[in-house]
């Protein structure tokens, strides 16, 4: 099937003919339109201006802000980061100025950008998510929100919701009732069967799902004989987790009727293509930005090279093509 596509479309494309635009469909309201599939992953790209020092971030598909909570949070003790084989473990602990300061200080700054901005929200209770949705409803700076039901770093918090399909359904439903923009529900991979939470989000009215957040993990300092992170546990991200993420996207693509934002371990254009072939419509870039701030630009160029090599005119044509 996939092979056929390749042979049929031998039409000698040039770079200018390539279509990288992706549409994240909405069954409820307006679609989320992306210039290309690349979406910055929450927490790995600051709030825009840090990366903007290196390149024009408007060239990306969308920008997701660092996770915000109802109240300001100082985050966990340091060290908050440890390096592992082809991965990193972080336990930032959602350091953020709280939703009010986000609205007054951070949102206005994003007005200078032309790409869609998504606010990533986290809560410790259903009530928190309701408050966050209410405060962000109607903010014209935002194209949508990403509901993080999966942060493994807050005790008794996010993670609990994300592993229970009923809670995922309830919270998504509440948020959907309040918030009229695009809603992405971000799921945790620390679960026996991610298709259950993905389906729950879909049923409750999520416009799309994002997967994966980080894998629960830890590292021990063998000389100090204690955990490397002050918080003991953290979340694993980076190339090490990509095979797990791709599998989850592939698995969900067969069952869902809403688009998927796939992420986890993307370093290159090839990795983005892998997620798209698995079934992702948009692809998040996280950890790689920390290593290579201009990664987004490089990756777009690499996607184009792939499209030319395989004579793919429209990137949409290969969504899920590995099935």
């Amino acid at each position: 099937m996939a092979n056929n596509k390749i042979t049929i479309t031998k039409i000698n494309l040039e770079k200018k003919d390539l279509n990288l635009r992706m549409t994240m469909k909405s069954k409820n309201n307006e679609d989320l339109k992306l210039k290309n599939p690349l979406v910055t992953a929450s927490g790995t790209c600051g709030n825009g201006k840090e990366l903007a020092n290196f390149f024009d971030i408007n060239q990306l598909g969308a920008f997701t802000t660092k996770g915000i909570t109802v109240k300001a949070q100082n985050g966990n003790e340091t060290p908050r980061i440890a390096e592992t084989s082809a991965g990193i473990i972080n336990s930032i602990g959602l350091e953020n100025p709280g939703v009010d300061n986000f609205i007054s200080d951070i949102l206005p700054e994003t007005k200078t950008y032309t790409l869609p901005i998504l606010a990533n929200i986290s809560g410790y209770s259903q009530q928190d998510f309701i408050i966050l949705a209410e405060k962000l409803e109607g903010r014209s700076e935002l194209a949508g929100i990403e509901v993080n039901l999966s942060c493994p770093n807050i005790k008794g918090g996010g993670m609990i919701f994300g592993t229970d399909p009923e809670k995922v359904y309830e919270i998504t439903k509440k948020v959907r009732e309040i918030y009229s923009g695009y809603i992405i529900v971000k799921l945790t991979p620390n679960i026996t069967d991610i298709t259950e939470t993905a389906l729950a989000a879909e049923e409750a009215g999520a416009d799309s799902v994002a997967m994966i957040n980080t894998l629960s993990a830890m590292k021990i300092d063998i000389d100090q004989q204690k955990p490397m992170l002050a918080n003991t546990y953290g979340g694993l991200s980076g190339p090490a987790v990509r095979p797990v993420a791709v599998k989850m996207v592939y698995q969900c693509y067969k069952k869902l009727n809403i688009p998927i934002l796939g992420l986890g371990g993307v370093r290159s254009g090839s990795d983005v293509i892998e997620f798209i072939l698995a079934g992702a419509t948009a692809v998040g870039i996280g950890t790689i930005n920390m290593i290579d701030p201009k990664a987004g630009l490089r990756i777009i160029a690499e996607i184009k090279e792939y499209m030319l090599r395989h004579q793919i005119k429209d990137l949409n044509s290969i969504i899920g093509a590995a099935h």
Partner: protein
Amino acid sequence: MFKIIKNKKVGPNIFHLVLNYAQLPESPEPGQFFNIKVSHRGSDDPLLRRPFSIFDFNAADKEIEFVYKVVGKGTKILSEFETGTELDILGPLGNPFSLNENGEDIHLIGGGMGIAPLFYLAKKLKKRNKKINIYIGAANKAELNFFENKFNELKANLYLASMEEKLTIKGTALDLWLDKLQHNPDFIYSCGPEKMLTAVEKKALKKNIVGEISIEKRMGCGIGVCLSCSCETTDKNQKNKRACVEGPVFEIGEVVLGG
């Protein structure tokens, strides 16, 4: 791209790295750092960059210098790169030492690899004809030799301390500074282990000495996007600051030190 001109052992596990650059986004200031990719080309292992302070900078020859100690996997790989290898380095990054209007009588206190950023600083201060006293300490004489020779080139007042042998004194850079401290300098700069900085700061606050310290926090990105390097500060308007953007140089008393 940055090409290795020299990567030479200058002490026990200590290396002097000199890079030639084609162009830089801006001229580096003392106290700033570069984030260096230490993996072999084509390899992702290790994944993260490693931050190193600028030891010296020479615009005429287009050279940037670092001094680093091999402490783990990344620095081990770095130490094995040969002359001619091209490195992927990012910078200059971070908030530099302030150089203006800090008075005339200046003390520099450095411990261990915290000595590295003080050299380029001392050079700049010398150019401004400041009177500087330099107090540096390390585990042993061998770790200080290279720094001693370099600082002597500047003809600065240099005092040395080592834990293993009696030099100016036997002990830490802190002991040394306290030993020699007769009157308050106009300004101090310090860099070294957090324990030492904590003690320097305590003393300075007590004696009303103003100055700056450069701290080493475990970093994820070095560019301010990840919040791995947050430091609690005494600043009411911004409780947490990032060591990689608002630091690594902070005013004495600004950061809540843990050591």
